[in-house]
């Protein structure tokens, strides 16, 4: 796969993840008043953990692809985001594995136990990552925030690409982190479980 194709694929997936989860967020907020919205959230619930894992997995794959194949050397802030994203792959993967094992052992058991257990940890990791991503994205538009000097290596103001005039690597990371937060938090408990 060439770099242009991977860039466009990543950008579209990030926008889809952000857009799709925003729909879920709106549905969750409207669930108390709208039966249709509540049904949508209920239907999404079994998918939340696998989708969050896929988002983290693709973001991890993408970051490694861009650094190792496209040679986009990661800056300091990129590494902080990587710490959060790579950890999420492991954390969510373990939760997904536990859900699968629990489902096989006890089909009538609580299918969402591992998701509820892991959600606080995953959401905190994703929140930390999203704060760094948001700062990194704003820094790209305001390079003087960090310093007025470009370092000789890879400064955090380096913009490897900007698709559609606004989508950059930190923006995509932000989409991924926010998607995971919405996926896991909106399906943590349903309205009738309160």
């Amino acid at each position, binding site marked *: 796969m060439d770099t242009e194709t991977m860039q466009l694929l990543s950008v579209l997936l990030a926008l889809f993840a952000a857009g799709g989860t925003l729909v879920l967020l709106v549905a969750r907020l409207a669930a108390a008043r709208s039966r249709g919205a509540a049904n949508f959230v209920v239907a999404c619930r079994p998918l939340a953990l696998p989708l969050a894992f896929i988002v983290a997995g693709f973001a991890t794959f993408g970051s490694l692809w861009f650094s190792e194949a496209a040679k986009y050397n990661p800056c300091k802030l990129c590494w902080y985001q990587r710490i959060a994203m790579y950890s999420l792959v492991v954390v969510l993967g373990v939760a997904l594995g536990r859900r699968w094992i629990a489902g096989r052992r006890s089909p009538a058991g609580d299918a969402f136990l591992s998701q509820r257990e892991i959600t606080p940890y995953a959401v905190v990791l994703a929140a930390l990552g999203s704060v760094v991503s948001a700062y990194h994205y704003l820094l790209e538009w305001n390079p*003087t925030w960090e310093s007025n*000097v470009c*370092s000789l290596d890879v400064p955090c103001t380096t913009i490897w690409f900007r698709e559609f005039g606004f989508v950059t690597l930190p923006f995509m990371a932000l989409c991924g982190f926010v998607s995971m937060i919405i996926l896991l938090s909106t399906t943590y408990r349903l309205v009738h479980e309160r």
Partner: protein
Amino acid sequence: MSVDPNGHKSLSTKRIVAAIAVVLVVIAGIAIVGGRSDDDASTADGAGAQVTPGGGDSSGAAGGAPGEFQPVTAMGEALVPLEESVPAPGSDPAEGVAAPMLAGFDFAGSAVTVRPSGKPVLLVFLAHWCPHCNAEIPRLIEWRESGQMPDSLEVVGIATGSRDDQVNWPPSQWLVDKEWPWAVMADSKDQEAAFAMGVSGYPGLVLLAGDGTVLARRSGEASVSELNDWVGAAMLSA
């Protein structure tokens, strides 16, 4: 689609999965087609092409041939790397030290040298992808056009840290677009000119006295008044 006891239709998880799968297939299709289109477009308009205006190879390994990189020979001992962006007067250990002479080429392959000529010289190290360099060039031009720049001062821009995977590539065209009015030396891929002068950040400014000794160094953006004060103070101290 199932119906609950109250007669409301409920979405099934399988339908959502199917919808997501369809969107993902569409996204993959768009990326494959769009990625190829972008590739074609970039080739057509020259963006990302590694060809210089002069038609030579971008590696420019051989001196005298057009290229974005050119061999640089530094004669003399390299200056110590600049540790502070704007060192206080007298605190830079390179001040008063004889700077190495630089022999290199511009993008077209014409020889450019930096050696003592009796006139002070300001070396401006610029990286095309650096946002601070992009901001600094108009200020340098404004400084010159305001008449505040000393008449005796010669300016040489040194295009360094160039990368063909970064914005504003190629640097030769970038400097044309930025209307850089002074002489230019293209640094080598190994940034020999920058390292010889101890540059540790872009934009890097090295002010040399007429006898080739270092008057002052700094890195980072500077306003017109800061440039004026910095150069004025350094030249007065000489």
